[in-house]
């Protein structure tokens, strides 16, 4: 799985290249949300397995 850190670095570089540097703080927020989403997916899977 692409790590959040490498995804964020690549996304910010791409946004910069496209002249969309204003995207950077939004992508940082999105990275935190994606991390939370992946954590929830793992946690809920574990809950399901334990039931």
């Amino acid at each position, binding site marked *: 799985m692409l790590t959040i850190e490498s995804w964020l670095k690549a*996304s910010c570089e791409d946004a910069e290249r496209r002249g*969309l540097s*204003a*995207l950077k703080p*939004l992508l940082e927020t999105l990275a935190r949300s*994606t991390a939370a*989403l992946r954590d929830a997916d793992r946690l809920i899977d574990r809950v399901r397995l334990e039931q």
Partner: protein
Amino acid sequence: MTADLRSIIEVAPLIHSGALSPVELTEGCLQRIAARPELNAFVTVTRERALAEARWAEEEIAAGKYRGPLHGIPISVKDLVDVVGTPTTAGSAIPPRHPDADAPIVASLREAGAVIVGKTNLHEFAFGTTSEESAFGPVRHPRDPARSAGGSSGGAAVALVEGMCFGSIGTDTGGSIRIPSAACGTVGLKPTYGELPCDGVVPLSTTLDHIGPMARTVVDVAIMFAVMKGAAVETDSRARYVFGVPEPYFCDRLHPDVRASLGRTRETLVRAGHDVRPVEIDHAATTPDVYLHIVLPEASWYHAPTLAAHPDRYSPGVRLRLEMGRYILAEDHVRALQLRRTLRTAVDRALEKCDALLLPTLAIPAPVLGEASVDVDGTKEPVRALMLRLTQLFNISGHPAIALPAGVTSDGWPVSMQLVGRHGATERLLSIAAAVER
């Protein structure tokens, strides 16, 4: 001029009997639209066509061909929905589409004899909660033009509050019917997912999009919903209901006056003989993350051609949100879709213990236009996230939900409560809402 704020259920018998002219009713609405242009409630006003439709309704009714309670009633349509003969601007400077047919929902209202007075303003492409990013100017709250009317169906709610129409069609992807209804003090219904067709509606996220009625009372919303669905709706229930208040997550961040209103609503319901008890919705805290990873890539998919052709014609904030969606990995989108099923099951389980969920619709009163964050209980919160917080789960889960007026804050701003019903039981939710409204 004084707004005519009567309900559909009040004026319909007068129209049927001939005591009230649909033409006079429509002229009154058109005058009130013209009287408050600074609110930016409408994108297009179909004055001549509306008057012709009203005259036609009057002639039909006089000839004994009464079609039902929407016959001759002035209605508005959010400018995200196709109405033949008008451009569908979606509140954007992007070139609009010019539909050659009404959306099926609009066609059903016309068939019932409704008079379409115009297309209401919205947050551009329905991608926002404040209706301030629109190529046709920000929708302003009638109580204070510096405040937002909520969004994205902000123009529709303002039109209802100001007596510019008697009912409106809105759309709701994360709360866009319920949020402006809450901010302005009107009633808005998001039906069960897929219950009403979204054909002829500019999509935001096909997994989350809903269309539904907005009006000044529950019964009026039920009248519109019945026509839109093509089914009878009974709202005269005298039953005693069990309400479940989902406290964790949903009651964590509330304006003090909203929290107080929830307390008063609980007390009123108990005094009326209903049962109110706390319930939990498992995994509710994942809601914003699941929502974001569904809405962003789906919106970006639809807008990809115009983002390439006309990137500078979007409002800056809307463009950035659309661009953000292009960076979401397919794997995370699928992860969110899987978690959507989990959340739907969690809401189903909570509703096994009660007839409807009861929670506020909007955590804060109408925010000031241009404000990015707001203070709640001593903590700064982003306005957009806070406005979506209590509504977006039910777009993810697809359960029907309705926003109802629930008094005002200490300084007079509307507060709203939300009821959420069982999946596929929108008619029953309307009965419960009518009992609460009483």
